[in-house]
């Protein structure tokens, strides 16, 4: 018996970039995260050829989930064509030969920064959200050891205290992105900086969501059909952004989350944030055969 019979031939990189032991560790933590929805699991967070803070947490989860038949979509604030999204998508296909797509309906694996696609995700799809700061208690408890105790005690009063003070100061809740939500009635998570518009999409969803922070080395999950309830007062209902009546100036889409584009003469124009949905809408208007899947919001109203 020689060493060469026990080992594989040398290769420049492993299939799917991460080596087997790294993926094994990731899988264990991801399964744990599914088992305790919303609870942050620490993981080793390997080096990947990207700077921390640029989506390394999401990338490690995506790399672990990659299969030969995966179809990957990567979005950055809703756009498939930003440099960061394009680079990550190309990296994923190069290390695994997975197919690339821009179309939410075709994708099996979607890595995203700050958005959930507007078309409904299915049970055969996995969403991976990049998370800069996984700890919802950080603004109210800088000591992370105490914050973990607070999670253990389900001691979330101070998060409501923040909302209370927003109500007192401004008469409404000012929390925009990263709105804290109670998962499965037990752990409060920060849903990464997705807009309020997107939080209801995680509630009792058919798809599995992973949220992963590479710099902070924490990942957590929302399994399919799991309650995700934004923290609200019983007499102050949860409100999403007031985008229902806005119209995309390029695609004519309405009732989706918009990016505001300031105009030279003052005022602003709006553009659908989910860029590929906009592209599909334009193509359809031009008479091309495109399929737009069922949407989370219909006529500006969330349809559970």
């Amino acid at each position, binding site marked *: 018996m020689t060493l060469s019979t026990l080992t594989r031939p040398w290769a420049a990189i492993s299939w799917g970039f991460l080596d087997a032991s790294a993926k094994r560790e990731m899988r264990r933590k991801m399964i744990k995260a599914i088992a305790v929805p919303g609870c942050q699991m620490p993981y080793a967070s390997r080096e990947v050829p990207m700077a921390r803070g640029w989506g390394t947490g999401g990338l490690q989860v995506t790399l672990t989930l990659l299969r030969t038949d995966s179809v990957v979509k990567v979005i950055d604030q809703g756009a498939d064509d930003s440099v960061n999204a394009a680079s990550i998508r190309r990296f994923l296909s190069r290390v695994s030969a997975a197919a690339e797509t821009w179309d939410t309906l075709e994708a099996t694996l979607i890595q995203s920064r700050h958005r959930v696609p507007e078309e409904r995700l299915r049970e055969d799809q996995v969403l991976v959200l990049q998370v800069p700061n996984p700890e919802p208690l950080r603004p109210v408890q800088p000591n992370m050891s105490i914050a973990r*105790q607070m999670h*253990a*005690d389900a*001691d979330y*009063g*101070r998060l*409501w*205290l923040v909302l*209370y*003070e927003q*109500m*007192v*100061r401004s008469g409404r809740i000012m929390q925009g992105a990263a709105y804290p939500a109670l998962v499965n009635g037990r752990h409060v998570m920060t849903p990464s900086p997705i807009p309020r518009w997107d939080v209801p999409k995680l509630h009792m969803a058919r798809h599995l969501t992973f949220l992963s922070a590479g710099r902070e080395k924490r990942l957590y999950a929302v399994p399919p059909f799991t309650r995700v309830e934004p923290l609200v*007062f*019983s*007499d*102050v209902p949860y409100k999403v952004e007031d985008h229902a009546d806005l119209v995309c100036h390029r695609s004519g889409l309405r009732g989706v989350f918009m990016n505001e584009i300031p105009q030279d003469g003052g005022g602003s124009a709006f553009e659908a944030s989910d860029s590929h949905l906009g592209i599909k809408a334009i193509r359809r208007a031009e008479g091309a055969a495109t399929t737009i899947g069922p949407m989370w919001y219909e006529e500006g109203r969330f349809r559970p």
Partner: protein
Amino acid sequence: MTMMDRLPPTLVAGAPLLRMTGVSRRFGRVTALEDVAATVWPGEVLGIVGESGSGKSTLLRMMNLEDSPDAGDYRLALPDTAGNLFDLDRFARRQLCARRIGIVYQNPHLGLLMGHSSSGNVAERLLMAGERSFAALRARARGALEASEFPLTRMDDPPKLLSGGMQQRVQLAKAIALEPALLLLDEPTTGLDVSVQALVLDTLKRLQRDLAITMVIVSHDLGVIRTMADRVMVMRHGRVVEEGLVDQVFQDPQHPYTQELVHAKL
């Protein structure tokens, strides 16, 4: 001591609200508490006096379940508690303290979030107990602050911008917001100006009269104890050296140390 032993109570109906027995606590080589027993009856104000290091604050922290003794038994006669409270785990302790015990510390930093609003500090207590209506939180926080005679025009200012007396009132409002069965006061007026001190004591006295809250007040200031307490325990070197009605302990102290303490004051 020539004093005759006192008989067990026969006239007071029901059980004491608080009963602690055999509580001992050492920190390394320092004995903080040595076989301390304490009993507090419903509606009563128990004072604990003693110099710095006598163990009085340590004892109060035990009553608030912030620390566990090396040995001892602690019971509260409340419908949803049973057994030795020192055996409770951290979660159960927190629940019990949040709902049934209020505390005012000498140092407001221990009891308040100095950067959050005053009303928010009170609301946090209510949130902890599960109140989720904004209107109710607002109304109840306002009510508790009002009962503590806190000026409502400043209810949304953070404690860090308030005077010492005002900070104590916020602590007090937070402590009484859930109508606790037991209110613990750890040197609540020490460090305040004399005139402010009198006003805070007056508020405490009025609350005691109106709500008949059972209180334990720790102070090294005999004047505070004389004003507030029905009964008093004198502590020294972690032990209770004398216990009695406030007027009796101050007018006819039995233990040499108590005599020294009372005469030093006069």
